[in-house]
């Protein structure tokens, strides 16, 4: 009965209902846009950094993290492959064998990072980040290297030159060799671009005397959001005495910290947005109460109980907020969809700089069910709190004064 009354009340004065619902509608849309933008840029930074450096997940020997020496390279054997194959949610893996070495040319010596890789898998992980500038990528069974262009410049090397690599091999062996430079590649991470050398995995393992061993196995989850869960699953299956599973959050604490700071500052501002839209809705509801004073006064004087009336006003607010939130979600979707595909571009002068870091110079918007869900809930909660005001008002109303208004 009360519900029917409340529902009828809504449509008795459509204009009033529409105005209130529209204030909720705008609140939802603005909250959606703000949150989608915050989340979008956050995700873009994560995936960019993660793909360029550590990957989402790494499987390592349990001692490698504390002491990243080739002595702690682990055996990538059939048992391990079997476990990887049987774990759900893994998109693909990227094997690496890497170590610091000295690279020498006739004129100079520099410390470099040698990374033995499976080129196909690396490209899958990050096609944007590696741009071949000259020559070709070595084949899987080549004894040749691919140089990062910053390093090539510093060593003054070109395709066809030979480079000498000297370092410590696996368990006391020495690792030294001379390799032709087959190609030069640009890496969108300046710090790595100055020191990285790629070599086919097999040749690298051979150089270090560590056949079938890896220093790290990068694992890409099918769903990026499931990274932590997948890490847990793998940990459960592997002997912690021998293996460690690390997530990008553990491997790049600085990145995480600056991202968290960014996120926190975005959140601060979104709270302020909630405050502002909350007051917007409150203003509408307050004015609505003024308008209906006479109506309520009459209802109360003809014998309706205050509690009944309060319930009706509350149910009305709930209806209105649901209408507003639903409309906001429906109306916000095309906006977010559009922004997702046509993100805001930064100025042209920024583009070159973004490109250095392998990023597109845009402010990306996330298209994520979670954004819709969380913002709907938040705005609904705000509205329900505001909906308590009419209830409170009804209980305190002076019937005679109100009816005469």
């Amino acid at each position, binding site marked *: 009965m009360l519900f029917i009354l409340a529902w009828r009340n809504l449509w008795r004065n459509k204009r009033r209902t529409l105005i*209130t619902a*529209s204030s909720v509608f705008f609140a939802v849309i603005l909250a959606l846009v703000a949150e989608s933008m*915050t989340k979008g*840029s956050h995700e873009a930074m994560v995936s960019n950094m993660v793909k360029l450096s550590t990957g989402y997940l790494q499987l390592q020997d349990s001692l490698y993290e504390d002491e990243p020496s080739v002595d702690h390279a682990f055996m990538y054997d059939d048992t391990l492959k079997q476990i990887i194959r049987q774990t759900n949610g893994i998109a693909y893996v990227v094997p690496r064998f890497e170590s610091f070495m*000295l690279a020498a040319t006739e004129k100079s010596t520099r410390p470099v990072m040698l990374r033995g890789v499976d080129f196909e898998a690396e490209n899958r992980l990050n096609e944007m980040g590696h741009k071949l500038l000259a020559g070709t990528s070595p084949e899987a069974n080549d004894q040749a290297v691919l140089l990062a262009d910053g390093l090539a410049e510093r060593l003054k090397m070109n395709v066809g030159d030979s480079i000498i690599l000297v370092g410590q091999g696996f368990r006391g062996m020495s690792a030294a060799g001379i390799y032709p430079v087959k190609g030069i590649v640009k890496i969108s991470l300046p710090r790595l671009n100055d020191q990285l050398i790629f070599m086919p995995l097999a040749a690298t393992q051979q150089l270090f005397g560590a056949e079938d061993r890896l220093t790290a196995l990068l694992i890409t989850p099918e769903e990026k959001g499931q990274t932590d869960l997948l890490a847990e699953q793998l940990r459960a299956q592997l002997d912690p005495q021998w293996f460690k599973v690390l997530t990008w959050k553990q491997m790049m604490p600085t990145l995480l910290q600056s991202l*968290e700071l960014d996120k926190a500052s975005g959140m601060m501002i979104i709270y302020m947005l909630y405050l502002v839209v909350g007051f*917007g809705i409150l*203003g509408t509801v307050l004015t609505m109460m003024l308008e209906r004073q006479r109506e309520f006064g009459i209802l109360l004087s003809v014998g309706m109980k205050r509690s009944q009336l309060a319930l009706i006003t509350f149910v009305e607010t709930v209806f209105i907020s649901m209408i507003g939130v639903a409309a906001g979600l429906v109306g916000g979707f095309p906006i977010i969809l559009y922004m997702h595909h046509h993100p*805001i571009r*930064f100025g042209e002068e920024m583009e070159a700089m973004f490109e250095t870091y392998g990023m597109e110079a845009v402010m990306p918007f996330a298209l994520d069910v979670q954004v819709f869900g969380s913002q709907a809930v938040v705005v609904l909660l705000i509205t329900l709190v505001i909906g308590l005001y009419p209830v409170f008002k009804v209980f305190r109303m002076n019937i005679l004064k109100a009816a005469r208004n």
Partner: protein
Amino acid sequence: MLIKIAWRNIWRNTSRSLTILIAIMIGLAAALMASAFSMGFVQQRFNNVIERFVSHIQIHNPDFVHDGEVTQYLTNPQEIMQQIQKNQAVKQVAMRTKVNGIIASAKVSGGVQINGIDPETEQKLTDLNGWLVKGAYFEGVKRNPVYIGQELANKLKADVGSRLVLNFQNLDGEITAASFKVVGIFKTIDVAFDETTVFVQRTDINPLLGSEQLAHEIALLSNDFDRLSSLKQQLQQQFPELEVRSWEKLSQELVLMQEMTSQSLIFLVFIILLGLGFGILNTMLMSVFERTRELGMLMAVGMNKKSVFQMIMLETIFLSFTGAAAGMLLGFGLISWLGNQGINLASVAGDSLAIYGYGNMIYPYLETPFYLQTAVLVLLIALLSALYPAFKALQLVPAEAVRKE
């Protein structure tokens, strides 16, 4: 006359007026807070990175910028230093010897950037001592002290007092090795920096490299940040054969971050202002409808439409000015208070930030013109939002409006 009526109208229904007034006040205060917070956030990151790592301006041999070879040093660094010190605009200046090398403990080795510094002047420039977590800042070890990062110490399993071997190429191109003793351990906000940077005394490293006066880098802080580009030009003219670079050029990563953060924060502030606009629009609209009868009465007794329109606009102007003034005061008060107190982002982002200790305190601040700009913008929004409801009021048909309850 109209002004008088409008003014009386406002106070005739205090609760309605207060609602609008408070909405504008809170909206403006929130918008100001959001801007001040963004400025504080960007500034905080700047202080952390520029003042403690990069400095305002750095001077190098142009070849060193390109290749970073130890042989590409500054000629006559003492003389350059003296000339720079004479410049009134320079607050603090220090020079460094820089060479890439490998640091090794008994078990593990890693590539590092070796910085030869004069501990006292360096301390004045970058407050290097401020990052100390263990041991002392170049005190207590007579020969070959080395100041290393926490991350590197962990990796090398080194502690204060440990001996470490540094390998690097000297000016003649020969690989040199020397034993250093850990004097202190530092921890900055940048884990990668802590893992790859070590500090030694110039007086120790220079003889090993083969020249007592050697220096590769001169870094300085300016007295007047706003006139940095003119200082940079001045220095470039003074030393045409050297490369003088300011922080924008030195830390492109920071410029990029700064750009992304400030763009997204500006976007969020814009969204807040939109939210404020919709809030006012809806409240005003509701208030016009609530007053249908009253406005209809005014028209029926002969007030022309133009006057009704003007009256509503005048009311809005009064309300907005009062609200804006109150909002400015509230915003100013809040910003000044929080500017002293600081906002701890860890309380928003949760524990993940608390462990870092540094860099999560934000001190909001806003320059005076910004207050005025935002206030003008909010007033404009308020007036624009009032236009539509005022037009709506014009469309009322007096005969119908009067009859409405």
